[in-house]
């Protein structure tokens, strides 16, 4: 019996080893044949989603080579669309290169005198494949690429900076999609771009209450390289988006020349980034609140303004500042930011990321995404938050102020006192949100 057993086991072992060899052989075959595409360098993803959204199109078939066609007209439109997409891709590639080979037209490169343009040296430093877990080698590297963006940022923000990296689907709020050129937390007016210092601050401090961590431990030159790379991805994305809009939505023609791309598309965006410095909100001096009495009076005045019909703060932030002011609204009247408003719920395949509702800030937590300094909160109230329903109460081009700087400072004092105020009864005339019942 034992003989039989041992013979049987030997055979089994033999077979098992053969099977193992087979597996190893199959693995080798798979690597050598089918997957040659996986070693190709990554490319930026064309922004087809925004084009479809802008076209109010419900069918990506309009761009798909193998998609359905109703008739000859449809076929012709589709072929024209695909040609336009190829031109869009060529123009964008010519102006910006690829994740491994970033490029900037000489005219668009950093000009120290005019203080504008893109610094290709810094961009190159942040570009390229990640150097792994080892400390990036700084010497002898090809083109001095440290792969910083792909090491630190791309898993959330995506290689393209479209905010759709592999981790993005699990995050709330979703990572910023840079391609609209819109950033929420900045020191500048509503329509203005952020300054380099604003982006740097976001990188160094992170964004409290979100998945954005602090990168304070990175060396200063790496932070600066990443700031420039974010700017590069944003300018690339906005240029592509505007060209796509003209080519595919407005049916305009774009000459495939450097001057056409530069003058009509790239230069105005480069200029808008350079103008950010002048758009920084510098409020008049904060009213004196050094004694407890002065502060209490200021908070009381801010409280009155908060519940004022001119401010309307409670409609979103809630009658007690819990951020629940819009909770009773039906599903289609919820709040969304510009990155989410066009998405349809539950349609993952089309939008890469699910539709995400925007929660007005709970002002009682003491967590402020754009910074907790009085000045930060002043800027949020003055300019509003770009890309969101939060409107600006200060003066804007074409509009007089809703609140004076002094009134905004009072509001700041009240908002900053909210985490320490006991959850009071709502002010007179305000109904608590619990009175509404969600009607979905």
């Amino acid at each position, binding site marked *: 019996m034992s003989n039989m057993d041992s013979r049987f086991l030997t055979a089994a072992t033999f077979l098992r080893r053969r099977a193992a060899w087979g597996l190893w052989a199959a*693995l080798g075959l798979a690597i050598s044949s089918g997957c040659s595409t996986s070693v190709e360098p990554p490319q930026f993803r064309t922004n087809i989603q925004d084009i479809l959204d802008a076209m109010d199109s419900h069918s990506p078939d309009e761009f798909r080579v193998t998609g359905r066609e109703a008739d000859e007209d449809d076929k012709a439109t589709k072929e024209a669309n695909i040609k336009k997409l190829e031109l869009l*891709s*060529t123009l*964008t590639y*010519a102006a910006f290169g690829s994740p491994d080979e970033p490029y900037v037209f000489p005219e668009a490169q950093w000009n120290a005198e005019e203080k504008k343009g893109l610094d290709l040296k810094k961009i190159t430093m942040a570009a390229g494949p990640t150097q792994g877990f080892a400390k990036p080698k700084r010497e002898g590297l090809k083109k001095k690429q440290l792969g910083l963006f792909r090491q630190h940022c791309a898993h959330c923000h995506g290689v393209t900076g479209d905010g759709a990296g592999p981790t993005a689907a699990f995050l709330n709020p979703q990572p910023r999609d840079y391609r609209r050129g819109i950033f929420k937390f900045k020191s500048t007016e*509503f329509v203005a771009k952020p300054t380099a210092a604003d982006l740097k601050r976001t990188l160094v401090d992170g964004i409290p209450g979100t998945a954005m961590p602090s990168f304070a431990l990175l060396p200063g030159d790496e932070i600066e390289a990443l700031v420039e790379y974010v700017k590069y991805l944003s300018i690339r994305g906005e240029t592509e988006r505007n060209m796509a*809009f003209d080519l595919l939505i407005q049916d305009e023609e774009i000459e495939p020349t450097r001057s056409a791309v530069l003058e009509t598309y790239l230069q105005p965006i480069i200029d808008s980034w350079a103008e950010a410095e002048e758009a920084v909100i510098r409020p008049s001096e904060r009213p004196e609140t050094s004694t407890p009495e002065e502060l209490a009076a200021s908070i009381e005045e801010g409280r009155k303004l908060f519940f004022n019909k*001119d401010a309307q703060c409670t409609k979103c932030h809630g009658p007690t500042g819990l951020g629940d002011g819009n909770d009773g609204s039906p599903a289609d009247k919820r709040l969304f930011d510009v990155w989410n408003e066009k998405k349809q719920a539950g349609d993952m*395949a089309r939008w890469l990321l699910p539709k995400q509702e925007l929660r007005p800030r709970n002002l009682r937590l003491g967590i402020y995404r754009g910074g907790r300094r009085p000045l930060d909160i002043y800027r949020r109230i003055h300019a509003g938050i770009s890309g969101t329903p939060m409107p600006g109460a200060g003066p804007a081009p074409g509009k007089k102020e809703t609140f004076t700087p002094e009134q905004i400072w009072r509001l700041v004092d009240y908002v900053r006192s909210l985490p320490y105020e006991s959850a009071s009864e709502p002010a007179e005339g305000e109904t608590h949100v619990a009175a509404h019942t969600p009607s979905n």
Partner: protein
Amino acid sequence: MNPKWQVPDLVAAMLLLATLAGCGRSVAMVAEPEPNPQLVDEIRKGGGEAAEEEQTAEAAPSAEPAGWGNLKGRFVYEGGAPAREAIDTSKDPVCTQHPVFNESIVVGDDGGLKDVVIYLASKKVPVNPEYEATADATVVLDNKHCRFEPHVLVMRTSQTIELHNSDPASHNSAISPLGDAPFNPLIASGQKADHHFNKQQNAPIPVTCNIHPWMRGYVLPRDNPYAAVTGDDGSFEIKDLPAGTWEFQVWQEAARFLAAKPEWKKGKFKLEIKPGDNDLGVIQVPASLFKK
């Protein structure tokens, strides 16, 4: 552990599976367009500039048309008027004084479909000198009784849009045009805010008030003045169009690009405008075109 499988075998199997899975290309909605490397080189070298200059020289200003014509027509909703949904405005007591209804489909007693937008989609169109007087006029979009008045506004990019607030409480008016600067001012009672559009849009874009989230209006800035919105009875008129064959676009809030006739693909149709009056007649719009 099962003696038949040892760690290296398992690792090999897992690697194999992972590799095979990795080979499957991700489900792409649309194939990534490939850049043309030759053209990329040419653009970077700055080639093709001369050719462009020639073309600019060739582009002559649009010739004077043979005459000017008016276009009119009337959109009628086929089937009974849908019941109008009243909106719960109790969120803000200021808004409860006047009833507010959903305005995505508004049908008059006589079946006329209100707020259909019809506009000239063709480019480089000669503009009648009559329109010069109003080229830099101010058009008003009012926040009144917690809705936008008018619900759909057409304007020229050369004009100024003035957002008013006739209500006793603040409104905000958020606009995010494509390829143009966004705008979102807080407008207190009696205040107003001016805005300029730098670019025309191919379809009306929403104007929303987030303080009162049911509030939704539309604005369509265009480079030429040839756009109209149907009135209460569903009729419209575009005046002083240049004679010739032009392409028109039709849009309605609930249907988006409105293919009111089967041959109007994506709401577009070509029409020859003759000097004098042109009449599209009554256009029956089937109820099936609207999203419920």
